């Protein structure tokens, strides 16, 4: 994995003052009343060279790299609500690249390389914090599976270390390693380069940088139809009129099946709620991220001090952006045993996002049978970590109408050839 991704040609933001400690000081002088707009609010043009549907992190990153790396600046991002209002702004922000299969290692590590330095690329503080991600095992079987996975990860040149219960206790003092509990901590593995980032800032940073390069970011603009001319895409119908374009990239996560149906295409996706909750803020007690695949729990502490807890995916399809109670209840029951300090905390907020789950728990980055229509979806419960890498390879796919080496295995035709990238069996869950 010794290569360097092409981060694109972009120096200072065009037209806008650069964010820095000096601009912060200068604006403090005017009580922060004079900050410039981070991006324009343009009217949609009648025609673009390409249109990206979905203003989440993946869609905005795609647009940014199309402009920065491939020089496509006459493009638009259409978002039905507000930027990052989908799963981008609802996720628990875990970033890691410790996946079993080579294809996964390639794309998630590509993303991690881009995360390292993204704040500089975008001139935006995305609060990327490589605080480590520790995955814990609760059974003999999980331990063995874990050591297999660690070997595979290391062969791909990605950092990963196995820890015993005592080492875990030293690393995470609030954890309970009593072996008599329902989910005893029997070991774990740590990716030190993993961590978290501020989700909204990622969307805003890409939006601001893409806008600098001339990309039109259009919010409150819902795509209601995909217009085809025979086998090619002709444009998109929106709540703000028809927009003509020869290339359309759909990056709408939980709504990808709805979008595909507009073009008469079928996907192997099931849309499910995934839930998370945060507690009242407390003093710092946890400076890393802990995940448990057996419980379907992941926990970290935000910079504000809230404990951020994520649960497993609900068992039935839904577009309701709220989840069922049994799922978080199960997670919290195990959570208070593993972290007794949680039992006294009050929860402040609880929400759900609709995630696009794929049969092999790997994404779809693909052309379709309709020329000029591309899909980037199926990231399910774990696509935030991939945001920069996903946008980077999808931009390349749209610009050149062929997948590069990293994207190729994620083509839709793997469901016909059987070349699945089965991260389900490998990782249990993937956040």
């Amino acid at each position, binding site marked *: 994995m010794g290569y360097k991704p092409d981060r694109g040609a972009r120096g200072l933001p065009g037209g806008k003052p650069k964010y820095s400690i000096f601009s912060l000081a200068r604006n403090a002088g005017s009580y922060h009343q004079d900050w410039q707009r981070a991006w324009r609010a343009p009217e949609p043009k009648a025609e673009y060279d390409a249109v990206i549907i979905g203003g989440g992190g993946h869609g905005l990153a795609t647009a940014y790299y199309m402009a920065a790396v491939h020089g496509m600046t006459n493009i638009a991002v259409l978002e039905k609500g507000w930027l990052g209002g989908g799963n981008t702004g609802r996720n628990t922000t875990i970033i890691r690249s410790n996946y079993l299969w080579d294809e996964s290692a390639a794309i998630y590590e590509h993303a991690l390389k881009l995360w390292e330095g993204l704040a500089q690329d975008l001139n935006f503080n995305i609060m990327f914090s490589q605080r480590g991600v520790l995955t814990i095992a609760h059974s003999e079987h999980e331990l063995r599976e874990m050591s297999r996975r660690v070997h595979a990860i290391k062969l791909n040149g990605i950092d990963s270390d196995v820890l015993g219960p005592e080492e875990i206790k030293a690393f995470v003092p609030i954890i309970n390693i009593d072996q008599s509990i329902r989910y005893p901590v029997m070991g774990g593995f740590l990716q030190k380069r993993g961590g978290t980032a501020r989700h909204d800032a990622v969307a805003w940073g890409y939006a601001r940088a893409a806008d600098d390069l001339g990309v039109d970011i259009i919010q409150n603009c819902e795509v209601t139809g995909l217009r085809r001319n025979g086998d090619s895409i002709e444009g998109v119908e929106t709540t703000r009129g028809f927009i003509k374009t020869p290339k359309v990239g759909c990056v709408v996560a939980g709504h990808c099946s709805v979008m595909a149906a507009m073009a008469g295409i*079928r996907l192997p996706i099931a849309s499910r709620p995934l839930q998370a909750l945060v507690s009242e803020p407390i003093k710092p007690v946890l400076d890393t991220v802990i995940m448990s695949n057996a419980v379907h729990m992941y926990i970290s502490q935000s910079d504000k001090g809230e404990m951020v807890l994520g649960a497993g995916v609900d068992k*039935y*399809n839904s*577009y*309701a952006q709220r989840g069922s109670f049994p799922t978080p209840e199960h997670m919290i029951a195990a959570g208070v045993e593993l972290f007794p300090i949680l039992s006294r905390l009050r929860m402040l907020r609880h929400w759900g996002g609709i995630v696009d789950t794929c049969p092999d728990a790997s994404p779809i980055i693909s052309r379709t049978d309709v020329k000029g229509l591309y899909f980037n979806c199926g990231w399910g419960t774990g696509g935030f970590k991939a945001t920069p890498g996903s946008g980077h390879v999808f931009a390349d796919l749209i610009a050149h109408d062929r997948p590069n080496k990293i994207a190729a295995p994620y083509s839709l035709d793997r*469901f016909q050839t059987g070349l699945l990238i089965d991260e389900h069996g490998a990782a249990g869950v993937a956040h």
Partner: protein
Amino acid sequence: MLLIKCPFCGDRDELEFSCGGEAHIARPLAENTLTDAEFADYLFLRDNPKGVFLERWIHTDGCRRWFNVARDTVSHEIIEVYPMGETPKTEAAKAAHKASWRRQTAAEAAAKPASPAGRSGS
């Protein structure tokens, strides 16, 4: 939380059930004549509507029997519960059954016992 009416046990809490996903996916009988794409329709591709969805449920912690449910994926309202092997009766669920792309697939056609005119050589 869903309150699901098991046709055999009556109203029970969602916790007692497991969801088996899309209903009415028939295993193709003439599977060796299907193309890979047609077999993928059966094996991997799924109906995933925003609105009325026809799905299978099993009363895992009860009678352990399967049945079909027509449920709205936005409001979570359960529109109809009906037996395996049957199609729904209410208008909304009937419309969803008819609208599903699966009704047009070769796999679905191949699941019906072969009739001489039933399949053109694909």
